[in-house]
């Protein structure tokens, strides 16, 4: 293929990206509607000095990190067992782990209302078993938001870890065991460092998704669990504060990139250590 033809093939895609993505994204920061120049920067500075906004940023970060940690803690074992299984069920189990990705977040989150409500499955189980007469409030708490987000993003964590783990030759574990390493030593010295790239990808995707999610916090949280995404939506669709919305968008993006960068760095350090 000649270079000229190659460039021609790229033109439609580049045009779409430019006018449907890059230009609007930049303009959103430089010039929101009905807003004086540089107002976004001004608003950003205000937000960073405002304890209320800082609280929201911190909650967003915290929820994102907790969800990421739980997803890795639960997802890694699933991925490991699937990658090492020779059972004929393993294909089905992998499919079941991936299947939720086909389902709308609304559908998936909706189930938690049934599970966590005050007459929900957990509460009824607790009272039914006589453990307590006053089941704890579960819905509209940070725990509910975390549970919902963990459910949403576990498949992503599993798939990332799986693709990394299934690329690690099983022989390496054999070799470590043969050299005298116990199971835990093998995990710590061989498996974990080698699975790190997949775990980092997984962590990045999960954090990016969890920290910017809208559906789940809006359904399972309340006004006390406000995250940046809800704030962005409020500014853009309720109070019509364009500069504020743009500033929150910038904050959200920066948060995602900062955490992605940090996890990539930590992953590299761990592997080379």
């Amino acid at each position: 293929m000649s270079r000229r033809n190659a460039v021609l093939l790229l033109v439609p895609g580049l045009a779409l990206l430019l006018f449907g993505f890059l230009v609007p994204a930049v303009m959103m920061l430089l010039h929101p509607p009905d807003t004086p120049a540089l107002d976004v920067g001004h608003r950003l500075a205000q937000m960073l000095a405002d304890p209320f906004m800082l609280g929201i940023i911190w909650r967003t970060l915290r929820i994102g990190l907790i969800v990421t940690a739980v997803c890795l803690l639960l997802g890694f074992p699933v991925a490991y067992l699937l990658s090492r299984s020779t059972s004929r069920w393993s294909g089905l189990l992998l499919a079941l782990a991936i299947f939720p990705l086909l389902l709308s977040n609304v559908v998936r989150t909706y189930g938690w209302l049934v599970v966590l409500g005050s007459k929900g499955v957990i509460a009824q189980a607790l009272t039914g078993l006589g453990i307590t007469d006053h089941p704890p409030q579960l819905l509209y708490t940070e725990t509910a938001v975390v549970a919902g987000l963990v459910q949403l993003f576990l498949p992503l964590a599993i798939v990332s870890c799986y693709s990394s783990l299934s690329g690690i030759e099983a022989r390496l574990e054999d070799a470590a065991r043969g050299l005298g390493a116990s199971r835990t030593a093998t995990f710590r010295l061989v498996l974990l460092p080698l699975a790190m790239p997949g775990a980092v990808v997984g962590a990045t995707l999960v954090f990016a998704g969890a920290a910017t999610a809208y559906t789940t916090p809006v359904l399972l949280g309340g006004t006390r669990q406000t995250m940046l995404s809800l704030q962005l939506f409020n500014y853009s669709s309720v109070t019509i504060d364009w500069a504020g919305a743009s500033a929150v968008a910038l904050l959200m993006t920066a948060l995602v990139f900062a955490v992605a960068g940090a996890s990539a760095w930590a992953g590299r350090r761990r592997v080379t250590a």
Partner: protein
Amino acid sequence: MRDGSDAVVRLAKVSRHFGDVAAVDGVDLEVPAGSLTALLGPSGCGKTTTLRMIAGYEHPTAGQIFIDGRDATGLAPEKRNIGMVFQSYALFPHLTVAKNVGFGLKVRGVAREEIRRRAHEALELVGLSELSGRRPRELSGGQQQRVALARAIAIRPSVLLLDEPLSNLDARLRVQMRAELARIQRESGITTILVTHDQEEALQLADQMVILDSGRVAQAGHPRKIFPAPANRFVATFLGYENFLTLPGRGLVTIRPEHVAVLPESGTAPDGGQSRPGTISRITYRGTDSLVTLDVEGDTILAAASDPDLHEGSRVRTFFPDDRVVPLAS
């Protein structure tokens, strides 16, 4: 629980079934201390499974395995003190050469300084002490193979197990590494079991050659004993005896192409063998000699010949020297 024999590894009626498949089927085997035993056989005959049972990655469904005189049948791999070199080398890609070699010592809690010393020693033995800071991916195939060997040796194992350690290398390197392997085994004196499907490799390296056929031992013994006298057609085929025919008074026999003489049709037959008339159906030039395909009274016979006067279609006389003809139990 010591058993009587002084073999370092002893398998007593060991079998391993996978569902219906008998991968290994009642194998008895003694590996004397300091020797090199080669497990040889075609793909799927059970070589790897046998080796993995000795290492503890697989457990026998019947029989017992003794290592250093103690029953090791149910022991976990990390408790056996065995050095294994995998076909794919299985080097840890995230560790340097030195750390790979030191791995087994590190998990044994050996002191840092001592690890360094012994890793260096093992790398010297395989001639790679210069490369200790590299990662596996920065090494050639032959170098990786030697690192795997050094890693296995560094823990001073009772037995060294090698699963087709050379089969991933190209022809030239394979020959070279084969000599290297012989040297290292000789110098270290470690009892070694080598899995291969390459008869040349086994012939060249082994003190004991064990040929497996569908999970059973087909023949075992010193290469110089087995090679000139394969016990049956399976072993003969495997060792490159291409010709099988029935000779009057000798029954079913086998003979290698190199030992079949192709003589002019007229002329007297030499003594000490049998002579049969034949026709040349094809000649394939091989450089030093040609491979001649003959039709000998209905049998297809291959002979290696360097006579430039042979032509396709010529009628000739084939000669089978008595001392080269191996009778087979059919």
